[in-house]
């Protein structure tokens, strides 16, 4: 009984919600800028997992081919299309963030948000 309950609980959706908030925790609790970027990637991954596992049916057939009307259950192709776009955007955003981080590191010489903020306020 207990085992079945756990099996129901651990599915794509709950895992992705947990992952998303692990990412949010990383943003709130870590001062390292690199870890911030990692946390953002975790959030992105969580969203991708959520998209793919929502409306998932184990018996559904991929929507490939011509005679789809004769099939009983066809998987929803839209989340996959959206996910591909989200993945591409996520990767490019991470790349831009990392590039900015590198040039910021050259100027400030630290990976700590608070130290950067302190040095920034000294300039004004």
């Amino acid at each position, binding site marked *: 009984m207990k085992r079945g309950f756990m099996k129901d609980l651990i599915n794509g*959706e709950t895992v992705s919600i947990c992952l*998303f908030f692990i*990412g*949010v925790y990383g*943003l*709130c*609790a*870590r*001062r390292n*800028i690199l870890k*911030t*970027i990692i946390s*953002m990637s975790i*959030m*992105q991954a*969580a*969203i991708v997992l*959520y*998209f793919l596992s*929502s*409306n998932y049916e184990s018996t559904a057939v991929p929507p490939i081919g011509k005679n789809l009307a004769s099939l009983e259950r066809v998987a*929803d192709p*839209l*989340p996959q299309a*959206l996910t591909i*776009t*989200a993945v591409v*955007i996520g990767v*490019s*955003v991470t790349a*831009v*963030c990392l590039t*900015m*981080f590198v*040039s*910021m590191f050259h*100027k*400030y010489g630290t990976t700590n*948000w*608070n130290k*950067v*903020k302190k040095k*920034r*306020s000294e*300039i*004004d």
Partner: protein
Amino acid sequence: MTLLLYYLVLAPITVGLTQYIFNRPFFKYMGLLFQFSFIVIAIYFFSIPNQLFPLVGTPLPTGMILKVDATSNLFLFLSSVLFFSLTLFSNQKKYMNKLFLFLFMSLQGLINGVFLSYDLFNAYVLIEVATITVSILIMYKKDKQSMYDGMIYLTINMIAMAFFLFGIAVLYKTTGVLDFGSLRSAIQNIEDTKRLNLSFALLFTGVSIKAAVLPLFSWLPKAHGTASAPSIVSAVLSGVFVKIGIYLLIRIQWMYMPMIDIQPLVLAIGYLTAIAGFIFAISHSDIKLILAYHTVSQIGLILIGIGGSMEIHHFGALYHVLSHGIFKSLLFIIAGVLIYRYGTRKITDMKGLWQLSKPLSILLVIAVFSITGAPFFSGGFSKYLIGYRLDDPLQKGLLMLINWGTMISFIKFFYVIIKPLEHSVDFFSVRKSEFTGMWLLAAFCIGLGTFGPLVLDHIFHVQLDYSFVDQLTKLPAYLINYLGCYLVYVYIIKDNFLLKYIRRLELSFNSINLAIVTFFIFSLVYLNQ
């Protein structure tokens, strides 16, 4: 017709790219011509509202469409006017090289795309790309402080969009559609409204960060008031880019409307944001930061209109989006000119503008009158609409307080004009092209105020009995209020020790994220009540 909408999104990007590849001065003028054509199209769209244009052959809800209605067209018009006058303003500037022009024009196409797209996911993609463009523009001069400003801007906005995308995912699971119209009808068919709460809270948090409301605005002054970006970037950010959050909020509220009603929450957040914004603005003496904090305050005012009980308040909010976009851009580019000429960002060190340049002083006065809500100026008319026939004395009082706060924080701008010059400044003359851009914006400030009822009728088809004489009768009250504010400023606020503490208040990156989480949990709890 469909071609016109493609044109609005694709033409700026194509023109920018052509300029980048061929890099001839001739293309700069071509760009201006294109910019002008966008204004003409936006004006034309006002006469044919509510048009849907398919992007692919498949019909909704599986297809994709672009849509223009009165609301989106207002934003479109604002972006076209701003980009045209700002390009005109900076046509001869050194920083207007091929890369800058490419980024600037692409940003326009992306912003137009956000306002025209009719589904949440398209809007998400376009905003994400526009955010990257903006953060490159913020870091454009690559100096030390702009790195931090750009980084904070990029990360916080990415987090906002992560919340937004997660909201889309949850909403898609519940309803199975993504475009605004189908979502609205699908949401109305859901019996258990509790199922909508999570998606709404996520989307609401995302757009609230984008719109920079009370606990979540810490990224805005840094990004909008950054020293390193050219002033036209600040003008675009404050003028139209921050309004994307407002636009999405209006759309989301419309989608969920009968099932989830958050008017009281929006109203409360609006008042708090407006008050916090002007308090910070009063405490600062950096000219760009004053204007950036004022953007926060005016966003609050727009939210007050959106949360208002009558339909006219809602139109007032939209009208304020338009007028704020224009006068704030004018203020930002004047600030840019002043910073460059005086060689300082401190407003207390700028003096004797009337002696140095009379036209610039007049432009500054027009902009300040607009933002403080003087009759015959755009801000005055939109503020009149937002506070139209308010009965609640508390709301009336708070609106008055916000207006006084705005007046007080702009007294420093009058000092710039009036105070005598102590030592000579190398104040070389302002270029003709710069003046043309500024005068155009100033003309809009006056036109949108003096002919306000006519414009309102043309855009939203609302007749309002607010004549020339009515505006004239408001003038003495305005002047008396300003005199009162001046006295309060001189005897109470100026040199107050509290200002020093307020000025130092600044959230660190982790605290901003904590604020985001708190805001999210608060809105979830509020919805589950």
